[in-house]
């Protein structure tokens, strides 16, 4: 039995560009032997759940996606292929803490990472986007990174840092400008505006948005790192030192392996990429040396440069992989992404498509452990769509009716023209006809 793990491809010297995928790969590398699974470089549009990481078990035809569900699923597998981390010896408080820290990473570290790699325009265009282009087959870099960026921006929206996205900021300014013009306000010529004290003058104008917001950004980062700093992430490495530390600093919070993997994934993606605006990296390096040390050592331990190699699937030889990488399927994925961008209808369509694909995947699966219950939302949505369709149809019918009524002369043509008959000889009765023949 070979499990297939579908993940985003490698970037920044790490096995995956996405934090959750990276965490899963890290977890697999520590609990499974390389012969038992296969890493498949993929993107969300290629898997039925539309979410990476996704685990495919060919023996039961089951798809599992998401870090937590995959880890839970692995623990149901039998030990020959899966080395359980020593679960029985850990006290229950370790579990409780692990759950809490996993939730914290999701709710706070993910938005922070999103700010650094995706929202900040400079970092996105210099680092993230090229990295995505390198791992996606040809037309997909036009669509998928944009979708990821939009999703990330939505995740970080509550932090109120959208000004890091200078593209969006410029658009906003231009829009305001147009509105002012439309409203007829007095225009200051551009050249004058700069001199008077527009955006580009003075020290403030020279600063990048990251520098302007530096204090707030550092505050946001500190909120997360302070809490993470409490965790005893490196316990296994420490050995004798660890015991001494425990005596000195009191109890540091212990967590399970999966939480460490997740913490490593987020911190590594914050620390390792070479970005033009490295505020997050600087905060980490300056104030949280412990966390940096953890990232580097964990990386050295889990992905040694000379040593075991991750079992990436070979594109040509593996039938499962080449099937989902064929030109036809890539074009299909691209077209779906384009359709998704159609306002209003596109999103509904892709939801419907995703739902259908998931249904098919669930029906194919031979495992019955999944409890499937249909949500009312789905039926209601199809009702809504049907309603919208009916309304459109009704409008068409009424429009057509009006058209017929107005222009097709159901009650006569709308414009009646009367031509005065030509007065010719023919209108003078029989005598006229006689003369007409002569003329």
């Amino acid at each position, binding site marked *: 039995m070979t499990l297939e793990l579908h993940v985003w491809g490698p970037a920044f010297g790490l096995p995956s560009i996405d934090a959750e995928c990276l965490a899963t790969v890290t977890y697999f590398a520590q609990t499974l032997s390389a012969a038992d699974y296969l890493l498949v470089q993929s993107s969300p549009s290629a898997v039925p759940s539309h979410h990476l990481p996704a685990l495919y078990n060919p023996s039961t035809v089951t798809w599992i996606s998401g870090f*937590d*569900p995959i880890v839970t699923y692995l623990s149901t597998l039998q030990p020959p292929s899966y080395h359980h981390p020593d679960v029985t010896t850990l006290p229950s408080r370790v579990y409780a803490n692990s759950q809490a820290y996993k939730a914290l990473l999701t709710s706070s570290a993910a938005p922070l990472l*999103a700010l650094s790699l995706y929202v900040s325009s400079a970092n996105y265009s210099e680092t993230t986007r090229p990295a995505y282009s390198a791992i996606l087959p040809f037309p997909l870099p036009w669509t998928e990174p944009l979708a990821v960026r*939009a999703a990330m921006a939505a*995740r970080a929206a509550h932090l109120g840092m959208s000004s890091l996205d200078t593209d969006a900021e410029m658009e906003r300014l231009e829009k305001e400008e147009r509105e002012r013009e439309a409203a007829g306000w007095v225009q200051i010529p551009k050249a004058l505006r700069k001199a008077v004290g527009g955006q580009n003058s003075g020290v403030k104008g020279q600063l990048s948005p990251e520098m302007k917001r530096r204090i707030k950004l550092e505050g946001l980062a500190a909120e997360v790192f302070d809490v993470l700093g409490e965790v005893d992430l490196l316990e296994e490495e420490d050995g004798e030192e660890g015991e001494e530390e425990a005596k000195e600093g009191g109890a540091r919070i212990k967590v399970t392996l999966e939480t460490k993997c997740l913490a490593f994934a987020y911190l590594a993606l914050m620390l390792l990429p070479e970005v033009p605006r490295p505020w997050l990296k600087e905060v980490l390096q300056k104030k949280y040396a412990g966390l940096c040390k953890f990232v580097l050592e964990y990386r050295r331990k889990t992905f040694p440069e000379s040593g075991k190699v991750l079992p990436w699937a070979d594109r040509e030889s593996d039938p499962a992989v080449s099937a989902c990488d064929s030109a036809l399927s890539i074009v299909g994925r691209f077209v779906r992404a384009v359709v998704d961008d159609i306002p209003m209808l596109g999103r509904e369509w892709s939801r419907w498509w995703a739902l259908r694909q*998931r249904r098919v995947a669930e029906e194919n699966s031979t495992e019955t452990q999944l409890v499937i219950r249909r*949500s009312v939302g789905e039926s*209601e949505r199809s009702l809504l769509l049907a309603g919208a369709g009916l309304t459109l149809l009704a409008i068409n019918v009424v429009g057509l009716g009006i058209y017929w009524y107005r222009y097709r002369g159901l009650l006569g043509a709308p414009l009646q023209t009367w031509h005065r008959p030509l007065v010719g000889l023919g209108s003078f009765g029989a005598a006229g006809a006689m003369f007409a023949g002569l003329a």
Partner: protein
Amino acid sequence: MATTSAAAPPRKWWQVPRPLQKVFDTFPLLAYDVNALPGRAQSATSGDLPTLYVFSTEEEALLGAPSFNPSCLKWQAFLKLAGVKFQILPSTNHASPTGALPFILPARSSPTDVPSPIPSSKLHGYALKYGTSNPPEVSALRLDAYQALLDVPIRNVWLQALYRDPEYTDLLDRFYITPASSSYWVRGALRHQLRRAAETEILKTGPGGAASTAISLLVDEHSVYRAAVNALEALATLLSESKTGWFFGAETPSMFDASVFAYTHLMLKYMSDAEGEVEGEKGYILASRKLGTLVRSAGSGELEQHHRRLFELLWLADSNAELLDAKA
């Protein structure tokens, strides 16, 4: 002709046209006095007591019963913990200056006084300033991590159950839909909007509400419930470590207790199985998807016990206790 044009102001379009001028001359401008507020306004806006506006029903608000909205209930419980005396009134998001309930309107010092409302972001300070007893400030860094448990998995499962589970459509209608409109079509549209908003919120944290970095299209309900089971288990474990029975070993309940209570109370009250139903093993619990059952079976019942203690402390000590008890 020449004289009139010289006397007229230079910009002609300021002039009122003659016919209009005549009309205005016949009706001299008269400003009436400001109408007095309707009689009930005094009690309905703010009386001697500060008023907390929450999602509630008329009858329950009179009794001061717990609100059915988690964030409202959290602040209601916290204000009670802090010993602030207040009344509650049912309201909707549209009434709030920030667009979200709850908010508090301080008491009037004089009949013409116009107190400005205090949004929920400043309620903590308000409670400490006007309360009689200060709830303890817990300063464990772990607090942030456990707060994340409430913010992500537990909130997600509440959204999933109340808004997206067909079993609770009646409950959703009773809480938010029926009071808002009596029209069938408006109700349908409202329900759809609420469901869609809940779904977007869940998807922000991934299909299963678990750790994730990209927004996906569909909610993975099974993972949402499983994440919640784990989260409740973690909270129960945390509670079992405490000697005082309140979170983080505090002497008296703190803000975090109020936040947990807000969810456990609603889950136990509205989403429990019928009395006496056998509670099976974990598999059954996940299949049944009753949040009240999940709360009850977390750990060894610590959360239910915590809920009962806090409810007794905050509500049953009141004068309205019998009425509330009768209702419950």
